[in-house]
């Protein structure tokens, strides 16, 4: 097998594992669409990266971090629902990004192209994914409780407000790392679909978190092999495979 294909497989699996795990936490608080919309905030950052010739990952992360910080701060000040804020901020970012990009770049940024990656991208993807998984497991109790019930989190002496910011930052990091491969539009699906599938069939919290990661990896590997065989783009195929898993899991849904 060619090296580039192995790169792709490895990087995509790492990102899918981290994305699935982020999703399992995000879905504890019905944040599914927030994640989807959030990924669009990266667009102007990527566009700037392309224009000024620096790593788009960096641009994406800076914009995502800024975006989440704004959302977090305004939510805390105004108590506006986070969906509203994300909705406003993401369309703003999308508009700015569209102005900054040419049409061709825009297509690539929206849908990604995992077959065009180099060794440095693989390195970034793998180390960021590893960092994300470690952080989520390290702060598992605090994140899980804070996302499930901020009041209970506060009552046991955790700092839910700070933990929310930390989680959003990890979220942003995951999106930034994955965006090169999947594009802005599909990144949300890596985070949401495996976790939603796992939630249908999990019998405990532990199984839920691990299943989310494993289902993400399975979807990524299956999508990439299918893309190789069919000669199609891997991103959309990942979504189709993951979506198929989801509908099968609905049949096995507990409760």
């Amino acid at each position, binding site marked *: 097998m060619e090296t580039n294909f192995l790169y792709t497989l490895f990087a995509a699996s790492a990102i899918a594992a981290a994305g699935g795990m982020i999703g399992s936490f995000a879905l*504890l608080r*019905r944040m599914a669409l927030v994640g989807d919309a959030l990924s669009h905030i990266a667009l102007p950052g990527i566009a700037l990266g392309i224009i000024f010739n620096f790593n788009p990952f960096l641009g994406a992360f800076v914009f995502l971090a800024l975006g989440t910080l704004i959302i977090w701060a305004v939510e805390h000040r105004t108590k506006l629902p986070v969906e509203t804020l994300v909705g406003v901020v993401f369309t703003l970012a999308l508009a700015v990004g569209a102005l900054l990009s040419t049409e061709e770049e825009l297509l690539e940024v929206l849908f990604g192209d995992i077959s065009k990656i180099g060794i440095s991208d693989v390195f970034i993807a793998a180390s960021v994914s590893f960092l994300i998984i470690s952080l989520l497991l390290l702060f598992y*109790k605090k994140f*899980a*409780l804070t996302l*499930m*019930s*901020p*009041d*209970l989190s*506060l*009552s*046991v*002496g955790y700092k839910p407000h700070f933990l929310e910011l930390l989680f959003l930052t990890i979220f942003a990091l995951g999106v930034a790392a994955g965006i090169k491969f999947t594009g802005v539009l599909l990144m949300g699906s890596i985070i949401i679909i495996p976790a939603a599938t*796992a*939630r249908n069939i*999990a*019998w*405990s*919290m*532990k*199984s*839920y978190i691990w299943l989310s990661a494993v289902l993400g990896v399975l979807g990524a590997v299956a999508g990439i092999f299918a893309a190789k065989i069919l000669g199609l783009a891997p991103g959309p195929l990942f979504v189709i495979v993951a979506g198929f898993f989801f509908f099968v899991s609905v049949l096995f849904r*507990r*409760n």
Partner: protein
Amino acid sequence: MSILEIKNLKVGPKNGNILNAVSFSLDKGDSLAVIGPNGAGKTTLFRAILGAVPYSGEIIKDKNIRIGYVPQKVDLERDLPITVGEFLSLRTHAVAAKNWDGDHSYAGALKSVGLGKEFLNTKIGELSSGELQRSLIAWAVVGHPDLLMFDEPTASVDIAGQETVYELLHKLQDEHGLTLMLISHDLSVIYKYANKVLCLNKAQTCFGPPSEVLSSAELEKLYGGGGKLYHHMHQNGN
């Protein structure tokens, strides 16, 4: 010895328009019932004590106090994929304390609220509302609280289960010398289990032993004569 003292507490953007001029203190072992109409700021008072809402005035808590909180509406999604055992393990397990000796295991916490250890592997979503409420009390028990704050203990429990949740709280209080704060609408519960009562209607309208402060004039002032409190005294024969 005062375990909690509140002085001129105000909450709200317009200088106390959610909660205004609340002052009271609790001693160890007290049982305080907080009463008042809907929107009177009862839950806000609890949240202020927890530090969840900004306030002005003073909330002086005993040093090293451990607070257990059982919210009214559990904001937990009912289909969360988490077992009761995992849920209990999300909080730091308190070390043995003077007033909490004996079985410190999660199974022990469940036992103290009348649930068997098989519930450790039951998912939250599979619990009845009464079992969920008991699990939440077990959650508080794991932290070995000195002060247990309970927002409307029976709000989600059927009539048959009601008495036992209060009895359970009373038993925990007796065994561990807890201080209790509970929001209640039930006068018979207040007379039976509370030694102090706080009337709230955005501002504080009474504080003291129920037999002294709960005159019908006071209740009418608080509830506008709407009779929203339930008087079940006859059932207890006292």
